């Protein structure tokens, strides 16, 4: 087990560095520097001085090493668009809305999805099942910005029940949270349904019934535990993906979260911010997958305790 973890860690670290190089090069290859566009073109001398101040006039590999050195010390530099704070501070500030909305979305969507999946599995092939499956499929296949659009149109524009933008008060949070919740809900509904159906069909359940165990006990004590493993392992990557804010949801609901800053950082060529965001997300996903892999190997009794050969 330890060997496995160490190997995965090593491979993830290598991947991380490769990705960082690629992103760095890509970013710096985009036409136009951070101070070229805009309404007030600066005189070249001024521009050169600012570039030098930020170290942007040096060759790329020098910039890269300087940057990565800083990263290892958790110094991500200063964003061009708001020099008053460090990148780290900005991210910390911007993450709050994403985390709140996305996190709540996942936390609400997951149990709803599980319940939906359970209902579908237990009432198989009835209207409950069909409805739940349809909702799950829709949630997964319709892109999230389309869902957001539909939510806005139906609830904000036509029914006027809620707000279409901003996130200053909790009432405004409802629609974005619903939008965020669709993906975990749909994913878990599907997983739970198929995992439960698989388990319910296994011979050991028939034995339990023959023993006289009540249906409820069977479900909660046996079936759910068997189905739990893949569901647990998929949770972490999904949480990370949602809690870091969807670009679309934030764009549509005008929420100043990570997603929104990401878009603006690309537009304004704000290298430090862009780089930091990409790296941060990559690292988080790497770790999420690593932890999920380990969790899965650990939870699965077949892997943990070893099987018999042949």
């Amino acid at each position, binding site marked *: 087990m*330890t060997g496995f973890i160490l190997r995965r860690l090593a491979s993830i670290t290598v991947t991380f560095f490769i990705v960082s190089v690629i992103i760095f090069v890509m970013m710096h290859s985009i036409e136009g520097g951070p101070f070229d566009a805009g309404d007030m073109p600066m005189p070249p001398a001024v521009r050169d001085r600012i570039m030098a101040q930020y170290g942007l006039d040096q060759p790329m590999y020098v910039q890269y090493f300087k940057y990565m050195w800083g990263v290892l010390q958790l110094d991500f530099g200063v964003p061009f668009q708001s020099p008053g704070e460090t990148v780290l501070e900005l991210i910390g500030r911007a993450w709050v809305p994403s985390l709140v909305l996305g996190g709540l979305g996942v936390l609400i969507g997951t149990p709803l999805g599980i319940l939906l999946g359970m209902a579908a599995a237990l009432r198989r092939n009835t209207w409950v099942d069909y409805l739940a499956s349809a909702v799950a499929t829709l949630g997964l296949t319709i892109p999230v910005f389309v869902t957001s659009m539909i939510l806005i149109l139906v609830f904000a524009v036509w029914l006027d029940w809620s707000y279409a933008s901003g996130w200053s008060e909790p009432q405004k949070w409802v629609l974005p949270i619903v939008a965020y919740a669709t993906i975990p809900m749909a994913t878990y509904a599907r997983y739970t349904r198929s995992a439960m159906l698989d388990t319910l069909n296994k011979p050991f359940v028939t034995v339990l019934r023959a023993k006289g165990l009540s249906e409820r006990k069977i479900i909660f004590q046996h079936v759910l535990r068997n189905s739990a493993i893949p569901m647990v392992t998929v949770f972490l990557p999904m949480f990370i993906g949602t809690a870091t804010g969807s670009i679309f949801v934030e764009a549509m609901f005008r929420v100043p979260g990570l997603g929104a800053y990401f878009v603006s950082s690309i537009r304004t060529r704000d290298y430090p911010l862009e780089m930091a965001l990409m790296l941060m997300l990559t690292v988080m996903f790497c770790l999420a997958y690593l932890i999920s892999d380990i969790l899965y190997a650990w939870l699965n009794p077949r892997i*943990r*305790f070893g099987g018999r*050969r042949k």
Partner: protein
Amino acid sequence: MTAAPALELRSLNKSFMLRSGTGWRARHVAHPAVRNVNLILPRNQILGLVGESGSGKTTTGMLALRLTEPDSGQVIVDGTDITRLDHAALKPFRRKMQVVFQDSYSALDPMFTLAQIVAEPLHIHQIGTAREQTEQALHWLGRVGLHRSYGGRYPHELSGGQRQRVAIARALILRPDVLVADEPTSALDVSVKAQIINLLQDLQAEMGLSILFISHDLSVVRSLTDTVAVMFNGRIVEQAPTEAIFTDPRHPYTRSLLDAIPVLNPRDRRLRQFASREELEAATPRLRHADLHVPVTPSAMAQLVTVAPDHLVEALVA
């Protein structure tokens, strides 16, 4: 002066690395599948290689065909050592040795028609034009007992016995000297078994083939082969002409194999004895020098010794 044997295996060894346990506690254990195997397959003869599952007989067959690489030892085909030849040099020798497998379903590519399957060897060795290849393929389908019109069909449309016929046609279309048949009848019904065995016998006689017939089914082996070699735990423990093996088995393992054949007469059953694997390992016969037909140097390790003309047994010589 006898001609060089069709196939000769000398001191073949092959081990597989197996992993036991998980994670950091895993140990890699070398499992010796084939240990110091010596076999001679003379021309125009059928040699049966028998043993239980895991005895190494299939691996031996794969080694002979160089579908697996031996750790040490030599594979000699028609007098030439082919053990170390590279892909290009090996190709002409591939024409001389062919194989028929046990699982006839996965032995035929489900996407190929029967004609394409049988013609494939010609295609790979670039013999003849496409039309000639197809014609040859259809001719061979006929020789194995399937009507020519089957050429356009697919494997899934056939029964197990018919697929095995196709596999045999494919193996023989290049007129090889050696055919390795790895349990070709094990997956077939009893009546079909007999048909395939007859087919093999007829073809062998017609073509002067040498066949290495691997099987665990002793009754089939008895009716088909000229010589039998018995494998146990990766080694050959006895080798003799077929009738000698069945009437005069010298090694305890051979005896227990024969005892395992179901008998009809209840009275005969009481004579059977079954020993465990450990008992068999320990029961290597001990022979004195005088019992041997051909003298050998005494050694602390068991070795194959000749106890009668053409009859070899693994024993400890005092």
